[in-house]
């Protein structure tokens, strides 16, 4: 599953922070006198899925397929699939990472608007860090946007918003 923007309603209420992911963009902003926060991206263990993704190879046809287990299980639209040992060789098993892996994107930077005062709240339309927004069944959902506070040195992302994403009552 992909990530989700969940607090876009803050976009009109708070100053928006721009995210850059290339050095040329970052250097352009620095040359124009903007402050920035450089973020080294890390794995968030909470974003590993709760299921294994297995790759199988059919012994007769040689074709590959993916599944969750050898034993029969239900997939969408009530269909049942299985990968019995008699028919399928297991090639590999991985635990999918449902954030954006640091090997894909190792860093990013937030560009600080010039008139932003310390302790002012900001809306971040494109979060650099991997935060868990919610889980659904065995999938983990990344927060693609968020709200934070500009401390004068960093942007502290408000994690309490993730916790109140689900409705209770």
């Amino acid at each position: 599953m992909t990530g989700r923007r969940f607090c876009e309603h803050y976009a009109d209420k708070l100053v928006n922070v721009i995210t850059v992911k290339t050095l040329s963009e970052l250097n352009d902003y620095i040359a124009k006198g903007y402050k920035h926060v450089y973020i080294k991206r890390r794995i968030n263990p909470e974003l590993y899925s709760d299921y294994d993704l297995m790759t199988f190879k059919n012994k007769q046809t040689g074709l590959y397929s993916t599944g969750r287990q050898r034993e029969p299980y239900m997939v969408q639209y009530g269909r049942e699939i299985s990968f019995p040992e008699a028919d399928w060789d297991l090639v590999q098993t991985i635990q999918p990472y449902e954030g954006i892996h640091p090997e894909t994107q190792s860093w990013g930077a937030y560009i600080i608007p010039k008139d932003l005062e310390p302790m002012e709240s900001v809306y971040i339309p494109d979060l650099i860090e991997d935060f868990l927004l919610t889980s659904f069944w065995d999938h983990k959902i990344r927060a693609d946007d968020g709200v934070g506070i500009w401390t004068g040195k960093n942007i502290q992302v408000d994690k309490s918003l993730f916790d109140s994403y689900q409705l209770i009552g």
Partner: protein
Amino acid sequence: MLSIKGQTIFDENGKKLKEIGCPHRVTTSELQRVTPTKLLCEKCSKDIIDTDYFTEAQIIEILNKDKETCLKINPINPIFNFKE
């Protein structure tokens, strides 16, 4: 599909099923999982139904029996349609 407008859940015919609202403003991390489908809220010692694991028909049946049943609703669950 169940619709949620503001804090109210409606069935597909527009019948109001329940007002969602917690006086203690409990959040997900404060709940304790009791069974795969039930959570415990320690503030009121009440069970909370995790709607991730129920069908639309099951949720309607639960609420028709007891409107005071507490629910946990995940906006990512496709059985819910959030309206402005």
